[in-house]
């Protein structure tokens, strides 16, 4: 970029000429208490709840508690050089973040400022971070699928565009991997993904960004990060900033996937703020409005009606549980707000079932209507198969004499579990998922040894790619299953070439 001194001088000259020499009127207050990222100010008459205020050193704050004698302010930035007695000025604005296509591919903080070292972002538009959710008439029921590329999710707990599906589980159960894989699978789906990292280690965020970059997913992804080192207000605001950026795309008719990783940290940050602002603590010391904190956020995810452009925001909020306790305060709150949950279990994870999805406790309340027809057909009996298997599994450990039907159920179950396993960062197209589930549910895998199932799957799918693309194309274009005979023929043809390991 070349900078010409004359141009700049001309610009400044114009600005000086047009400079309004009028008086500036501002409402001010005085800081009477400061500490822990919270300031209390005296004065500041007529300040609005949620309004931005400016301290004398240029740091911004957000008015939170309006009391008779003072205003509680959360500070959005370094608060070390704010002193008691400093002036606080009203700005008359409420908090906004930059929005627009320019943000895609960037890593920003809760205020929309870049933190990836790639220079300023040339956005032209902003949106207030707190806004109403779309109303009843603006919405449409969820009907398009959001393919996560994870077999266990797409088959058992399908997610539709505009849905809010909670991902819940203990620490280290692969929650983030599920989200990253889902984002990776949105390539060529005309989706914008927003990954909001709340209270994560900087190194973890870096890893996630690198994974996205490596798989080319950063071209359609915005990463909003408020790391563990950021003050609590940033953690509290990050999800709102994320969904605000998403809303801009939704209202222009695009489809957006927002991942909040994770909301329990946001709730903790909000608890910290609320306690410092001296709001009365309630259950688990959370403030009274912690439910509203999450409900107003998740209500903004929606499938818009055709009149409104038909865009959507799908939300994948995360909640971390302690020792699998989903009846704690935040998990129950968020479960009741969302349209279903995916429950990840640590004992499944350690027994090698990855993704460690507990099919019994995971549900999707609206996603079923968003599945494609072919998938609906092949996955219909999957859940029952799995449930029957889990029931018999414990029971069959004692006796060896089992009747044929029981044996068959056990065999099928073991293979189902095998098929649902999936490697990290290897999302699978829906047509391939349908093919492998078809083989499973129609019993074509029953004579393959359990240990060979995953190898069979891999080889079968790449064989299909080379020999029977018409089957895959048929599923992709018509969304229905091809003729049974054609499917059976293809599977049997492959089985002839497949070498069992024993």
């Amino acid at each position, binding site marked *: 970029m070349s900078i010409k001194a004359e141009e700049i001088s001309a610009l*400044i000259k114009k600005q000086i000429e047009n400079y309004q020499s009028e008086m500036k*009127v*501002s409402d*001010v207050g005085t800081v009477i208490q400061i500490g822990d990222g919270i300031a209390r100010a005296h*004065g*500041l*008459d007529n300040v609005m709840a949620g309004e931005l205020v400016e301290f004398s050193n240029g740091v911004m704050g957000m008015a939170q508690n309006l009391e*008779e*004698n003072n205003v509680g302010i959360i500070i959005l930035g370094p608060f070390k050089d704010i002193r008691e007695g400093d002036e606080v000025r009203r700005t008359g604005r409420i908090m906004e973040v930059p929005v627009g296509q320019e943000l895609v591919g960037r890593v920003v903080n809760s205020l929309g400022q870049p933190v990836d070292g790639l220079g300023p972002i040339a956005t032209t538009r902003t949106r207030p971070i707190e806004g109403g959710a779309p109303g009843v008439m603006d919405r449409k029921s969820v009907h398009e699928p959001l393919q996560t590329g994870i077999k266990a999710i797409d088959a058992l707990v399908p997610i539709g565009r505009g849905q809010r599906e909670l991902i819940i589980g203990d620490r280290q159960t692969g929650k983030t991997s599920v989200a990253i894989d889902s984002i990776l699978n949105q390539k060529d789906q005309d989706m914008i993904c927003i990954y909001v990292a709340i209270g994560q280690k900087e190194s973890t965020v870096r890893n996630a960004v690198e994974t996205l970059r490596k798989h080319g997913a950063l071209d359609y992804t915005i990463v909003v990060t408020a790391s563990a080192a950021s003050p609590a207000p940033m953690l509290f605001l990050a999800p709102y900033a994320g969904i605000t950026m998403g809303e801009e795309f939704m209202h222009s008719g695009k489809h957006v996937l927002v991942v909040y990783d994770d909301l329990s940290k946001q709730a903790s940050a909000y608890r910290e703020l609320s306690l410092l602002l001296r709001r009365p603590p309630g259950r688990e010391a959370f403030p009274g409005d912690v439910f509203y904190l999450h409900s107003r956020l998740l209500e903004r995810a929606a499938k818009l009606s055709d009149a409104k452009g038909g865009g959507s925001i799908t939300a994948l909020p995360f909640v971390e549980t302690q020792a699998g306790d989903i009846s704690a305060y935040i998990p129950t709150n968020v479960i009741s707000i969302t349209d279903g949950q995916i429950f990840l279990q640590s004992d499944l994870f350690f027994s090698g079932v990855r993704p460690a999805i507990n099919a019994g406790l995971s549900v999707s309340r609206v996603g079923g209507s968003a599945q494609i027809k072919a998938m609906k057909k092949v996955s219909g009996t999957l859940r029952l198969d799995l449930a029957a298997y889990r029931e018999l599994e414990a029971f069959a450990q004692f006796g060896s004499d089992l009747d044929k039907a029981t044996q068959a159920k056990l065999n099928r179950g073991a293979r189902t579990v095998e098929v649902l396993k999936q490697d990290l960062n290897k999302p699978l197209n829906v047509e391939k998922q349908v093919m492998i589930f078809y083989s499973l549910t129609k019993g074509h895998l029953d004579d393959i040894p359990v240990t060979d199932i995953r190898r069979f799957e891999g080889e079968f799918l790449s064989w299909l790619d080379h020999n029977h693309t018409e089957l895959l194309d048929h599923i992709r274009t018509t969304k229905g299953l091809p003729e049974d005979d054609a499917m059976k023929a293809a599977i049997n043809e492959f089985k002839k070439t497949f070498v069992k390991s024993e």
Partner: protein
Amino acid sequence: MSYSTVAKRYALALFSIAKEQNQLEAIEQELRTVKSVFIQNKELSILLENPKFSTDKKKDMLKEAFSSVSVPVLNTLLLMTDRHREDQVVGVVDAFIELSNEARGIAEAKVYSVRALTEDEKTAISASFAKRIGKQSLRIENVIDENILGGLKVRIGNRIYDGTLAGKLDRLERELVR
């Protein structure tokens, strides 16, 4: 401006007494003196808040020190001593002044300027700003501040009307830097 709830209560009570006895001006004048005494002698409030010093002694001292003030003001001070609200005296005075200003339709204003304002200038400022905020006149306190470079800065309550050269340059700087 907002004061502590306690200060407002005392001020309101004293204000209604002053109005009943038609002594608004006199009592306000006395209270201003009381406030300046309290502000100038920091030791006074420290002494009054000292628990080792008996309430009777504090009251005797107040009676002696403020022997010239009217009965309602002195009684207020004594009552506040009895109730251990000695720390609120300045707040009560501020709240009282606000109430009486409200009643008379005037407002306090701090005017920052580079040199001392003449009386004519003060009246002109008072006239133009009073209209702006819907009051009849302003009670102007002139503050000399070299740092504003030029122009005027008027502070009424918590609202600042900034017409100074320094403020303009500041805003210009911000616009250019952005």
